[in-house]
Structure formats: C-alpha cells, structure tokens
C-alpha cells in the first residue's frame, strides 16, 4: 500500500481505538497485524520482543483497573490491556513493511511535505548507529577522566548535543554540495503512485473496522 496512506491509516486506527472501548475490534486488529507480519516472514525472536515489550505497562494497567479502580471492571481492564498491543502491533506492521526512503518520497510526492523535512530526517536516521557509538564514547571519556556519567547527568546530554550540532552542520553542508537547495523544485527518480488498489484497500479496511466496532462489543 502507498506509505502515506498506510501511515494515515495506522494513525487513524490508533486514534479511533483510543476513544472507543470495545474489545473485539482490538483483538481482530491484533490478529490481522500478526497475520500480515507472518506473511512478511517476521522472525520468531521478533515475535517474542513484540509480546514482551508492552507486557509490563499492559499488566500494570490491567491489574490496577481490575483490582484497584472503583469499577473493578474485567472488561475495561482487558480492553486497555489489548489496546497497548494494538498500538505496538500497528506500529510494528508499519515500520516492518515500510522502507524509510519510500516513505520520505511518498510524503514528498503525495503529501507535498517540504523536501527539507523528508530528507533532513532521513539523513539523521542513517546516523543512529553512529550516535549509539558516540554516546558510548562519551560514557567512556567520562570514565577515563574519572567521572561516572549517568543517564540523568546534564554533561551526557550536553556532550551528545555538541556532537549533534557538529554533525547537523556537516550533513547540511554535504547535502547542499550534492545540489540540495531548500524550497527548490526537484525531479523524481521513482514515482510513488496512489493507485486505485491502494484506495480500495484503504477504504475497505476502514469500513470493515467500523462495522466491527458497531457490531461487536
């Protein structure tokens, strides 16, 4: 599906299910997401991660509502428990099936997002591994100077932001010297279309979910 449409759908569904207290729709969305992920050959280790990550907050909310809230509602607890899995499943389906460059191109072409946002963020995303390394270096530099930095140490953030300022400067200069000019028109190598099929998928999923929401508790 077209990445922009997919993004819109994921956000819309997350938003809608936040304001609706229905159980079945949550479960069905989770199951559909899992089927999609299996279709895309999701690794079993990634499945375990998917189950584990939201487990603590989900259990905390469930226990608190069922045992400690005035209503003691098992239904509400289950809805909220499953809702967290809805969020994570939708997020995972999106990130797992969407290439960031295609998303950036789609946002630029289909949604007319200024290219400085699309490519600025994309350029930064490529630096995630390097940023992890840089943070490790800061911790190490601290140790070597006899200072134990913690995640709440202002120095840690200060040093990391210093690195970020330098990199953003370098990258912006590099992009500019590769011909990028803010606000200037660009041509397109790969056209990202929104096809009739995309619209059909998009609207049938939306309608299907609305029917489930209305029909089932």
């Amino acid at each position: 599906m077209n990445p922009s449409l997919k993004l819109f759908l994921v956000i819309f569904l997350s938003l809608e299910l936040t304001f609706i207290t229905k159980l079945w729709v949550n479960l069905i969305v989770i199951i559909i997401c899992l089927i999609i992920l299996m279709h895309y050959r999701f690794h079993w280790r990634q499945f375990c991660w998917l189950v584990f990550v939201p487990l603590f907050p989900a259990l905390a909310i469930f226990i608190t509502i069922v045992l400690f809230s005035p209503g003691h509602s098992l239904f509400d607890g289950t809805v909220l428990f499953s809702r967290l899995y809805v969020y994570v499943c939708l997020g995972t389906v999106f990130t797992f099936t969407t290439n960031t460059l295609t998303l950036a191109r789609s946002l630029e072409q289909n949604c007319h997002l200024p290219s400085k946002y699309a490519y600025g963020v994309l350029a930064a995303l490529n630096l995630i591994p390097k940023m992890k390394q840089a943070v490790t270096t800061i911790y190490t530099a601290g140790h070597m100077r006899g200072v134990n930095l913690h995640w709440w140490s202002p120095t840690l953030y200060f040093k990391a932001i210093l690195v970020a300022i330098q990199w953003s400067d370098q990258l912006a200069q590099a992009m500019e010297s590769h011909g990028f000019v803010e606000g200037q028109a660009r041509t397109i190598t790969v056209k990202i279309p929104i096809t009739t099929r995309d619209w059909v998928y998009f609207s049938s999923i939306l309608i299907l979910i609305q029917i489930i929401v209305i029909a089932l508790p």
Partner: protein
Amino acid sequence: MTKRSLHLRDIILLALIGIIFGVIYFAAGFVYNGLTILLTPIGYGPMANDLTMGIWCMAGPLAGFLLKTPGAAFLGEFLGAAIEMFLGDQWGAANLISGAVQGIGAELGFTFTLYRMYNWLTLLISSLTLTFITFGWDWFRNGYNHFSGQMLTIMLIARFVSMFVFSGILVKLIANLLQRAHLIKQ
C-alpha cells in the same frame, strides 16, 4: 529575538536530538519497568507512567531552548517520539500521536511566553502545559477515567513533579551548559 523558519540544518539537528534521547532512554527503559513492578501491587501501577513522563518529554523544551524558533519544541518532541517508534519501543504507533500531543504541550510553554522569554518561567509554564495536555491524552489512552479522584490527584501531582524535574530542571541544566559554551543563539 529570532522569528525565522526552520532550515535544513535545524531539522537534521532536531532529528539527531530525537535520536540522542531515543538512544539514552532505551538504555534507561528499565526505570519504567522497575517502577511498574514496584507500584503495581499497591494499585498505582500506571503511576510509573506519570513518574517517568518528564523523561520522555525532555527533547521538546530542550529543542525550544536551543533553536528559539516557533515550531522547534513541537518538532523536536514529535521527531523524538517517531524515532522511538522506529527503534521499537513499547508504545508503537501511539508514539506518533503521543509525540504530537507532547509536542503541543512543549510548544505551548514557549507560545505563552511569546517566544521572547527563555528562562525558568518558560520552563515552569511548559512543564504545566505538558502535564495537563499529556494527562488529558492519558485520560483516554490509558483509561485514567476509570480511576478514583484521589488516585487521579496523586498521579497528576506525580506527573507534574516528574515533568518539572526532568523537562524543567534537567533541561535547564543542559541548556545552561550549552549557553555557557555559546551554542545557543542570543
């Protein structure tokens, strides 16, 4: 004062700041889980969310302080949250919405001071706007409407304290260092 739009360099910087917070939070994620395990048996499990909320909301106020440009706080917070989704954290797609909600909360602090003041008052106001706006969102998202009035009051206070400590005090300390190193535009 500088009324300018965000340029390519600023956008890359905001995204990188998002990545920094993403990378560091990820390592500190155990704080959240630890608090959850501690608080759940006494019926305050979701309060781990309130107590750590300030940590997740540092990028926005810091970005606002660093760039002093309308939209910087919003974008810093939103990009931070979006990048966390790509790193694969526990809130998934809701991150995009939470990020937008938190971004608005952070941005309002600067809007209310008309993008002219960058001091403690600004941070106090942005802590307040962040507290109320994110609490409103959790009212629906995390089912806070099911809790008793007393519990809600305690959680609201906890959230404000967390907000003020992390996205207020800690952000100010970081901003002070940047200011002294002449990295913040006057």
